């Protein structure tokens, strides 16, 4: 029963989600929106579990002798500060919560994101190294697309934007659509396996 009930619930809701895609009637859309609301509610409770996990994990590292205890302390203090400030002063514009978010968290996230520029350069260097015929083709296509995408490209080769567009629209898009078809079919098969209960790994132990 420990497994049968979740499988039945999964089957019923999976079937409902499939059917509602074809039903424009308000009864179907309202039921769908209700289910989505419930998902959000369940998710909030799951977030509590996640936060409890963070406190447990970092709390166990708090002894001064343990390696990295200071970072765990910073994590717990940061978590507690955001919760307290959010509840006491609110989360709107001009509140301490919002100030910390805008001036600490957002710049830190932007810093991590900006690393992507350097990683793209190193990945491109490795990816475009000429080793065989395929890599020559890849390099050639990449050079044309890059030239076609910058303003100076038209001065170097007048038709470079058109050629770059053609590469992206025809051969590149054809390959991507091939992958999309595979992903779509794979998703359908995986969803069917989960809905009918063939794939039950996500349920954990019997």
């Amino acid at each position, binding site marked *: 029963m420990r497994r049968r009930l979740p499988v039945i619930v999964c089957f019923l809701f999976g079937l409902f989600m499939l059917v509602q895609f074809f039903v424009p009637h308000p009864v179907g859309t309202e039921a769908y929106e209700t289910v989505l609301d419930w998902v959000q509610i369940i998710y909030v409770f799951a977030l509590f579990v996640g936060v409890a996990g963070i406190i*447990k994990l970092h709390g166990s590292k708090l002894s001064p002798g343990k390696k990295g205890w200071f970072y765990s302390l910073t994590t717990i203090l940061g978590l507690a500060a955001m919760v307290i400030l959010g509840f006491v002063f609110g989360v709107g514009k001009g509140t301490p919560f919002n100030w910390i978010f805008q001036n600490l968290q957002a710049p830190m996230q932007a810093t991590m994101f900006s690393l992507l520029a350097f990683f793209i350069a190193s990945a491109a260097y490795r990816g475009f190294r000429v080793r065989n015929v395929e890599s020559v083709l890849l390099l050639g296509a990449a050079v044309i697309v890059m030239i076609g995408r910058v303003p100076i490209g038209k001065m170097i080769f007048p038709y470079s934007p058109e050629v770059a567009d053609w590469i992206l629209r025809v051969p590149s898009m054809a390959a991507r659509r091939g992958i999309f078809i595979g992903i779509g*079919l794979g998703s*359908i098969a995986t969803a069917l396996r989960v809905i009918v209960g063939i794939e039950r790994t996500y349920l954990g132990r019997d």
Partner: protein
Amino acid sequence: MNLSAKKVPILILVLLSYRLCSGAEQSEPAKAYDTPNDAGRSITIFWGKFEPSLLTVPEECKIFRSPEQEGTYELVATVPFDQLLYRDDDVDDDSSYYYNLVLVKEEAIVGSFTLGPVSSSPQLFNTGRLNVLVGVLICGILVAFFIVQGKTGRELYVRPIAGLSAIDDAIGRATEMGKPILYSSGVGEMSRVATIASMNILGSIAPKIAEYNSKFIFPNWDPVVTTVAQEVVKEGYYKAGHPEAFDPDNIYFVTQSQFGYVAAVDGVMVRERPATNLLLGTFEAESLILAETGNSIGAIQIAGTDSSIQLAFFIVACDYVLIGEELFAASGYITKDPMVLGSLKGTDYSKLIIILFVVLGSILGTFGVDTLVNWFSVG
């Protein structure tokens, strides 16, 4: 083609009535009708068949509405003539309405139509998605057929997938080097199919990790995925007969901030120096940052996602990449479960059908026949 004498008149009648119906439709310059395939409360006014003379091409359409034919009409909208249709989304279901369509050029009326009565109602089935239903049914029937075949013991061949064959070696390498294995399912919620596929793969490799007694680290972006992953890995350790080796603290929730998660996982990579990184699931902009950091520490990396954009990043930074449906095929490939393998075979045959349609559609499209292509448009 063999047609019996009885069938010929019926066929002629059907073709004739179709012709007559289509002719009648063409003769109507404007019409108002219940908007099809919607949730109700909407009427469409269409004037696409109106053919003005060259000198009197209207500039705009004024649309008036009244609940009675002889009643007072109120202006609903003024739209450009070349818009050809207008959706009135401010009506009540099952109430009759009349529309007065006035075509205007330089403030002079060049045409006028009274349309109705017409009423709106919600539909139970979106006929614009009939093709999707047929496609899903065909795919579902093929998958079900091959699942039954697999269940009855028929041997099903699945081509070797390098990335999946390498997983055993990657786990073994981590054991030999005495370093951990790092797993990430990316930034996807449990409802994403790629995340579900990732959990299935995790369930397949967890017993091997337990057997090899390798340290396993799985930082998570989502608390639900964390809980599911803990259960999945726990089962794997039980299956392998090493429940005591399972440490739930190694599968932990980090943060829901995308780049906060990246910073945490990169930090784990740099500090713990895992020998193997398995990046399987839903990845977005963070894919390259994770994969390049993994590459810089010399870890063997196996990645897979359902995003074609992120696949390109994984291909340049990882040793093996599961492309597209290979991610969804992985659990069946690793476990050799005949039912899962059967479903893979079903999707392969579905793909074959799609390839046939693509080839046929390309040929017909080249000759200007768009009928087949139009079959695949979704409403």
